[in-house]
């Protein structure tokens, strides 16, 4: 499938933005200035971006605790995200959500989620809204190999099929649920699980934007056409630990280095588009430079932004109480 030039440029920019955003957080977190927990999406950029390149603002996604990449891929504003992670009043959630709860409903982003397996049931509901309101939109649940074993996820695969919902379940399989290997924790096969629920199963290399874009496009088209849900199994590697500060003693030495050297989605993308003459290397360089500036100013702005005020503590628990 031919991908429009604008889509390629936008997707590269989103992947580069995620990479720089996360690498910068890795550095900043080590200084102790960022409160709470941070889970980085480095290495997985092509998945979120390849999927979301098939979506519009009307479509809904639900994310995971490793949600920064999905937020950026769905168009959530970077400066607001950075401010949120720094716990500032100018953050997208006014400093009351933090890294694990970034959401922007105006962008169809139903939230990162601190609960493993929290998103798939919500996505059944978003898909039900789209189906009932007949707006042609779809809903996509990102979930990890760890969440793939949660009862809430398995129930959602069933419910989405029973209700024939326009839902896509994107399983981002980075091989680890926290520190425990998917090879240990996931019984049977994900393909057999999808087939068991009677839904199409697609699989792709999550470090190849084009493979993700193609497979996600098929899954999303299937759901959008009213044929019910589909599962997309994306295989990828996590470049950092479960959370920042995780020493990753459970991983073989060299595992991450090999992923960085041989399976960097940005390098793969650049090689592919320049060799095929789809984009010019200087265009990509320009994006790299613009993103560097954007992240730099987001960090500077976040550090200088006002903190929440005492009155914010009590605000927005309810619409009315």
């Amino acid at each position, binding site marked *: 499938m031919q991908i429009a030039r604008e889509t390629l440029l936008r997707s590269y920019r989103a992947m580069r933005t995620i990479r720089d955003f996360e690498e910068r957080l890795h550095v900043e977190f080590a200084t102790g200035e960022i409160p709470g927990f941070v889970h980085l999406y480095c290495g997985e950029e092509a998945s979120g971006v390849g999927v979301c390149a098939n979506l519009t603002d009307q479509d809904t996604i*639900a994310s995971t605790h490793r949600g920064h990449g999905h937020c950026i891929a769905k168009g959530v504003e970077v400066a607001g995200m950075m401010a949120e992670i720094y716990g500032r009043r100018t953050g997208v959630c006014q400093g009351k959500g933090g890294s694990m709860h970034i959401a922007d*409903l105006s962008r169809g982003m139903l*939230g990162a989620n601190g609960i493993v397996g*929290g998103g798939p049931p919500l996505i*059944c*509901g978003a898909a039900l809204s789209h189906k009932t309101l007949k707006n042609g939109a779809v809903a996509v649940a990102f979930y990890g190999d760890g969440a793939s074993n949660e009862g809430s996820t398995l129930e959602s695969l069933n419910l989405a099929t029973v209700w024939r919902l326009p839902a896509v379940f994107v399983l981002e399989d980075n091989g680890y649920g926290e520190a425990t290997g998917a090879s240990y924790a996931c019984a049977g096969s994900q393909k057999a699980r999808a087939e068991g629920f009677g839904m199409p199963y697609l699989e792709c290399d999550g470090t190849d934007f084009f493979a993700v874009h193609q497979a996600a496009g098929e899954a999303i088209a299937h759901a959008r056409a009213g044929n019910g849900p589909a599962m997309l199994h994306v295989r990828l590697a996590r470049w950092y630990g479960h959370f920042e500060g995780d020493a990753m003693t459970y991983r073989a030495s060299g595992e991450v280095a090999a992923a960085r050297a041989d399976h960097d989605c940005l390098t793969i993308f650049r090689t592919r588009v320049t060799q095929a003459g789809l984009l010019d290397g200087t265009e990509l360089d320009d994006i790299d430079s613009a993103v560097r500036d954007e992240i730099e100013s987001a960090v500077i702005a976040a550090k200088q932004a006002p903190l929440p005020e005492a009155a914010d503590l009590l*605000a927005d628990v309810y619409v009315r109480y």
Partner: protein
Amino acid sequence: MSKKSFRQAINEALRQEMRRDPRVIVMGEDVAGGHGGTSGTVDAWGGVLGVTKGLLTEFGEDRVLDTPITEASYIGAAAGAAATGLRPVAELMFVDFVGCCLDQIMNQAAKFRYMFGGKARTPLVIRAMFGAGFNAAAQHSQALYPLFTHIPGLKVVVPSSPYEAKGLLIEAIRDDDPVIFLEHKVMYDDEEEVPDEAYTIPFGEANLTREGDDLTIVAFGRMVKLANEAADRLERQGISCTVIDPRTTSPLDTDTILDCVADTGRLVIVDESSPRCNMAADVSALVAEYAFDALKAPIRRVMPPHTPVPFASVLENLYLPSVEKIEAAVKAAMGHRVPEIA
């Protein structure tokens, strides 16, 4: 205006709100009559409560949805649908089943608005039946409203009669926050005059079912009925009671409770939920902190013991608050010497 049962009052509230607003949908186990059965009968059953009977026929399968017995996915779906444009009313059947889906209520629906910086609206209603008195035993009889009351972001409604149920349910459906609406299972056949037209009863405004000078009784849900019966008996013995039905445990009408205690100086709380950290404890703390000087006697609480709900009638009757126990507690608070009722 005509006599309607608690069940009919709820059905009418659902029907009228579904007619008014196409975004209102109903989902739950068997609520559309049970799909996939061999009888081929449409709307064969109105769910195990009989409350949703007839809704499928009028509103169709897009708005009245049978669910698999998978509480986490469909309660979560109701939350997700509420955040994206619908106004779902999900029936959890027995509130005890919240054990299968608490995450979706406690960590998702209740917290969206706050943790998303005030940008989410989650107009979700979860209906469930609760309470003992049906020999339904430990997993089908609990009065779990304190559990939900504890969670910021949720509103909790415990209607005490058919009239109350209709007005409060319509209010719940029109409310933009997640609402837990708990129906006492012993009350479904209770009848009283209920207006035919739609009406609302605001949350957080207690109802004084009677006013008296000697003592204030605060009671929740079905306990309001028992408290009124006890107050009738006490009236004949020269003790005049105010009975407060808070209607909602969250928000709680603390002003009315404090005002009445200030007037009467004595307080009995009747709460069917387990005694630790329940509404009786909550109201006691409120009064102890803000109306201590008005108290002429210690606060008395009429509550079950700290046990699961037992099955056998003889034990279940011992477990539950009763008119006699309320009467005894009031007399004790009045300084009468009364034998203890187990």
